[in-house]
């Protein structure tokens, strides 16, 4: 293996620093004993304890998790169905349109997605709150879930399903006993991705939520306006950990799936 030159090493360090220095600072200062964000007052886990008594923040975290769980499940179910339709029926009227429409939220600016959903809810006279955020999150993460499952289905041998049918399985039994067990790593990865997307979304949640349904990113954002405290750092650190676990889990599942697919 060729050794890194000084230039390459510097570029690598600079690149990683650019990406991760802010996060490192945030995590480090969450263990700061001092109340002042910019002054290091020694190591302490005090702020993590303080989080536990911050009821509004805990409420927001619990709401966020509930939103993420339900919206990720919805997005995964719908995304998987869309992926199945796109992979199975190569030719149907409006396939290109359907495919484009499923993928559109991936590139749509969040502000537009949020605003259009808000307008829809207002026009439909839907009371905004927990469920509107769930629906909004399911809508924009559906496309991501669909792409992940579709990638798995692209290499799926259809004769496996035909063999199941031939051996006496109904279409539903075939899906349960053959299709789903073979694509589940991709489905699980899709779920984790959707969960993560929902967990850290601020913009769309801000547009579609109502009184009494404040998600964690929204709570943190409004708290920062009163000044950054180590307590917020601690909350963010926990969020980073949760997202990291989900993302690493998803990528491991996809990698395992890719290996099994060979």
């Amino acid at each position, binding site marked *: 293996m060729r050794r890194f030159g000084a230039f390459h090493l510097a570029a690598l360090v600079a690149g990683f620093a650019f990406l991760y220095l802010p996060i490192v600072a945030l995590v480090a200062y969450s263990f700061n004993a001092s109340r002042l964000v910019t002054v290091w007052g020694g190591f302490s886990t005090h702020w993590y304890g303080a989080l536990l008594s911050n009821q509004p923040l805990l409420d927001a975290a619990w709401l966020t998790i509930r939103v993420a769980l339900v919206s990720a499940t919805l997005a995964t179910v719908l995304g998987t169905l869309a992926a199945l339709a796109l992979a199975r029926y190569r030719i149907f009227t409006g396939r290109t349109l359907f495919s484009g429409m499923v993928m559109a939220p991936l590139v749509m600016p969040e502000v537009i997605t949020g605003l259009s959903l808000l307008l829809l809810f207002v026009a439909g006279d839907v009371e905004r709150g927990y469920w509107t955020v769930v629906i909004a999150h399911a809508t924009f993460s559906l496309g991501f879930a669909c792409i992940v499952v579709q990638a798995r289905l692209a290499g799926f*041998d259809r*004769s*496996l399903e*035909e*063999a*199941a*049918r*031939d*051996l*006496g*399985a*109904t279409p539903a*039994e075939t899906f349960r*006993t*053959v299709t789903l*067990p*073979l694509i589940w790593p991709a489905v699980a990865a899709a779920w984790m991705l959707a969960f993560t997307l929902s967990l850290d979304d601020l913009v769309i949640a801000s547009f579609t939520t109502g009184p009494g349904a404040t998600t964690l990113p929204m709570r943190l954002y409004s708290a920062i306006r009163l000044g950054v405290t180590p307590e917020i750092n601690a909350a963010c650190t926990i969020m980073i950990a949760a997202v990291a676990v989900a993302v690493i889990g998803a990528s491991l599942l996809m990698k395992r799936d890719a290996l*099994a697919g060979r």
Partner: protein
Amino acid sequence: MNRDSSRPEAAGRRASPGSVRRDFQPWNDPAAKPLVEFRNVTKRFGAVVAVDRLSLSIHAREFFALLGPSGCGKTTLMRLLAGFEQPDEGEILLDGIDITAVPPHRRPVNMMFQSYALFPHMSVGDNIAYGLKREGLPKVEIAARVDAMLGRVRLKGMEKRRPDQLSGGQRQRVALARALVKQPKLLLLDEPLGALDKKLREETQYELMDLQADLGLTFMVVTHDQDEAMTMADRMAVMDHGRLLQIAPPDLIYEAPASRFVAEFVGDINLIAGKVTAIEGDLVTLESQTLGVIELDEDAPTCRPGDALTVGLRPEKIALSHDEPAQAINKVAGEIWDIGYLGDMTMVQVMVGGDDGKLFKVSLTNRTRRIERPFAWEDKVWLSWDVEAGMVLAS
């Protein structure tokens, strides 16, 4: 139908190929009820007609082979039987019952897929048990039948393995066992030996034939490999462009092909164009541009003097000699252009009628170990054949 006694168990004594089961000819019995019946079945994919107004009967306990070039519609025909495709016209009967509208999971027909389609997330045992579980049979019975089937296909002790831990031949046997354990009225085999190497393919051919005879099942094999079809089948059908060109036992397909396409598709053949000059009883006399006058013995010839005909001549039915064969009725002089030595036989290409004439293929069986060969390139030789050797082909 005394077939089982004609199929000795001992591997070394398997002498007779499938087509030589003397008393098994239900297709010649007008009273016999076919197991499978296609009645004017048509299947289109867009503008392509994959199966074209096709009618076909397959009888119980028959080993039927469907042979044709790729894209001829043979796979579609099989998928119509399995229920994966619906015919646009016509009907398909199984045991006298119209199954055209029956979905695949309710048909007493099973299929062995070309790719085997083994479930990769299940063990060998679970793969074989899959179809029985769908029937909701008691666990004890499933276990017993899976176990018996494992013994039958020589996979005892492998039931815990996953398909990716098996060799190609073992995978093929799992696929076969998985379909056979359902005791189907009809087993469809899509290119069953296509993925195996040559030695294993030959062995497996005889295994399949034994299995079919022992279990008294009906097999339909789809293949593009004519050796495979001819070895195993009681009857075979040659298919092209969605139509069946001929349905007959392998020896009839080879020795009495119904058309020029069949003659050229199955085996090697030399084609001679000629014009009928005289007919005397069964003896037809033709005039050919390259060969001059030839005679052939045709059962109840339908041609008339003046007709233009194509005559087919199989390479092994032509004799080769240095001296002019005085006795022979059909003979022609030529020059050897090519010699292909294949071990068991030698394929000689002879140019007849000068440098721009016609190349004839002649095959010689190498019956002795003599290395010094009687013929060499550029030898002047004579070809001769009997009046029975040539066959009139419809174009």
